[in-house]
């Protein structure tokens, strides 16, 4: 096996994101693969270890971040990232290009994460169930006092805590859309759900986060 201990660093896929206030519908998609990516993928499918190392370099940050945001623990996130890339190594020859490679890899990683959550005894068994939280988990109508809004009141720790307390299905959609920047059509492809379902789950996730963040910042939610 050739030495590939130092796979080259890719650019940050979100580095082009504008950092000003951004309307909700303007999320940034991951980069579109180019012919070099196709060539690397083809070589990795043929067993080229250097090419596989390059794929790792390109996708490691997104996969690790997905795992970390889903489990909230760096040691578990490392284990899950390793398992996702091991599964990729086993299955890469079966990728037929029916979807973007990044979408396919994310779906594989999501299944690794959901299996892990199931082993931990959490109520997540499959993507279908992750995408369909129990009715009682859904947020109620949420209004709030207009003169007590969240602007400027969110800090990172509070947001991480609130995201970590979301039901797994809501958390998954929120991570994929609002943190990783995937569009609803890409998420629908990853999770085998409708675009409408993805939008609905994201909206419910944001409403639950709003309630949690208002509570943690001392803002009462009027219902």
């Amino acid at each position, binding site marked *: 096996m050739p030495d590939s201990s130092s796979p080259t660093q890719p650019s940050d896929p979100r580095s082009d994101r504008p950092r000003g206030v951004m309307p909700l519908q303007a999320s940034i998609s991951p980069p579109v693969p180019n012919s070099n990516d196709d060539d690397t993928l083809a070589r990795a499918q043929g067993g080229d270890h250097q090419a596989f190392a390059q794929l790792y370099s390109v996708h490691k*940050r997104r996969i690790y971040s997905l795992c970390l945001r889903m489990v909230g623990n760096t040691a578990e996130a490392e284990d899950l990232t390793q398992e996702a890339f091991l599964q990729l190594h086993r299955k890469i020859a079966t990728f037929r290009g029916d979807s973007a490679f990044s979408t396919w890899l994310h779906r594989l990683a999501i299944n690794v994460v959901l299996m892990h959550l199931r082993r931990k005894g959490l109520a997540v068994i499959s993507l279908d169930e992750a995408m369909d939280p129990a009715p009682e988990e859904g947020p109620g109508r949420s209004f709030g*006092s*207009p003169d007590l809004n*969240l602007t400027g009141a969110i800090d990172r720790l509070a*947001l991480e805590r609130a*995201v970590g307390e979301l039901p797994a299905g809501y958390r998954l959609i929120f991570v994929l859309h609002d943190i990783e920047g995937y569009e609803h059509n890409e998420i629908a492809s990853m999770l085998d759900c409708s675009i409408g379902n993805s939008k609905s789950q994201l909206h419910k996730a944001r409403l639950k986060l709003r309630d949690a963040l208002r509570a943690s910042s001392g803002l009462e939610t009027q219902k």
Partner: protein
Amino acid sequence: MTEDRNNLSCAEFQAQMPDLIGGGEKASEHPHVQNCELCRALLADLETIAEAARQLLPPVEPPDNLWKQIELAIKDEDVSLDQG
């Protein structure tokens, strides 16, 4: 279905929010938002949360030694397959 966009209740507007937010029209320009302080505040909060996610939770780099661990695990699997 015809619906008077200017006369939606808050519940009716909020039921449409998932589609409005992801659609082509800016949700903040919807007539109901223009006239309803509560739903305007709700929309502002949801925008704040989405923006906070982008600003406060950037992608995280895995530790450098993770690739070494993955390489070792791949080698172990390859050896097992060769022996099996």
